């Protein structure tokens, strides 16, 4: 069975919750190689999303995700604001008019989101950014779809791949974003944005399949 509008709304509610709980953790990660605000930024952004959500939760999934995107752009700031904002906007456009998302829709949505992030941020895999969590996640989703493993398994594998991608950022030398200013010193730390990307997917999986 597909992801419904209700699933989407539940996901966003739980995500706001999860990001609030991980506020200090994400900020802590950002202290090591950034400016100690990633958790604060994401929490602020999704608090705002919670305020906007009631007005659109009866609409199609595309409209909901577009609202999330514009809200993040308008409230998060920093690098993650435009990046996640663009990601949700593109995801919304990719799912415009839909009230149910099947495997192929989810793949299209993830692909659109990742493309949006890359278009904005010009980061490629291996630069120690959120791209390093989302790229393997998309790949895993794609071949789960090819193998017709079902939506739950698709989301489960995408989440797992994102987690591995997140861990893989630890030994990376950052060449994009604030962490790049640390040069060699960025090595040995997990990227905050890759971590929030993993949380977003993990929560999607859990809210779809509680």
């Amino acid at each position, binding site marked *: 069975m597909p992801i419904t509008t209700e699933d989407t709304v539940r996901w966003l509610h739980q995500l706001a919750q999860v990001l609030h709980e991980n506020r200090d953790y994400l900020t802590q990660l950002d202290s090591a*190689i950034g400016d100690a605000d990633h958790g604060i930024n994401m929490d602020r952004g999704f608090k705002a999303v919670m305020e906007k959500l009631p007005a659109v939760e009866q609409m199609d999934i595309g409209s909901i995700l577009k609202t999330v995107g514009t809200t993040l752009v308008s409230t998060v700031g920093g690098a993650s604001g435009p990046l996640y904002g663009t990601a949700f906007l593109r995801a919304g456009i990719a799912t415009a008019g839909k009230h149910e998302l099947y495997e192929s829709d989810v793949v299209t949505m993830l692909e659109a989101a990742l493309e949006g992030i890359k278009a904005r941020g010009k980061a490629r895999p291996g630069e120690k950014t959120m791209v390093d969590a989302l790229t393997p996640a998309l790949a895993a989703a794609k071949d789960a779809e090819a193998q017709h493993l079902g939506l739950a398994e698709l989301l489960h594998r995408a989440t797992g791949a994102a987690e591995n991608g997140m861990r893989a950022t630890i030994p990376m030398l950052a060449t994009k974003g604030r962490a790049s*200013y640390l040069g060699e010193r960025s090595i040995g730390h997990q990227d905050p944005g890759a971590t929030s990307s993993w949380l977003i997917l993990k929560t999607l999986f859990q809210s779809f399949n509680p």
Partner: protein
Amino acid sequence: MKKLINRVEDAVKEELAGMQALHPELLRVDFENQIVVRADAPVRGKVGVISGGGSGHEPMHGGFVGRGMLDAACPGEVFTSPVPDQMLAATRAVNGGSGVLHIVKNYTGDVLNFEMAAELAGAEGIEVESIVTNDDVAVQDSLYTAGRRGVGVTVLLEKIVGGFAETGAPLADVAALARKVNDQGRSMGMALTSCVVPAAGKPTFELGEDEMEIGIGIHGEPGRRRVKLAPASEITEMLAMPIIEDLGLKSGERVLAFVNGMGGTPLIELYIVANELAKILRGRDITIARSLIGNYITSLEMAGCSITLLRLNDELIRYWDAPVHTPALRWGV
């Protein structure tokens, strides 16, 4: 965390209210859009000059709003770049029909948000040019990285370009001068202590009693390397030499020497650094034709300093000397 604040989440808004209360003749605060706008904006026929960035760098940028410098500033949360909505509102508020220059410090967040704002303003038919400052020699520049950070030169650029914009010069020329200034300036900074982001509540990094960070940015982030504490003479050397080399300063040239405090370092120490800098420049027969010293681009209460050298020519001197009337910089009026 020991700070003179009320609720953390109100700090920036209350700061802006304080600016409005003390400087009504210079600026007005648009609280809904969280922007600081020159009192008489938009100035007809003048290119609007705006900048913005995270808060915590005061007086930059809000303290530079006024005649001869910025027409508007967009303060984000502490160390978090503002959002496109603020920049768009500021762009509208200062557009006197001749277009608007966006002065953007090179940080991914600032660049991406200003980019989106410029797209939106363009869609509204407002002509926008952007200059991205990237003067920090602590960071290796390269096509494949985020590139150098924008730091001290941003302050000097806002003054010089703001002064030029007052002459009614067209947007293309204003943007061209901005690029010239950015090309002619380099900076490097160091920290004796970290700082506490109010919302985080604890120091961004820990530093031993006998350690310092060389090559820091302005967001409390650690620097390029951590080394043992050293005398002011050696510290000044560590900051000044990479700047002089990168700029290729030659004997007989004139510079503007900017000794900047990071927020928690007293002026007595900045003058000691200035003295060391003057010795280094004198030794190379480089003349300090203009100077600026004090806390102008800061990291909250961080202790430390940065040095910026700007190669001067008569044109830059003319607009540096031009009248300016802002909360933080004022002369000639």
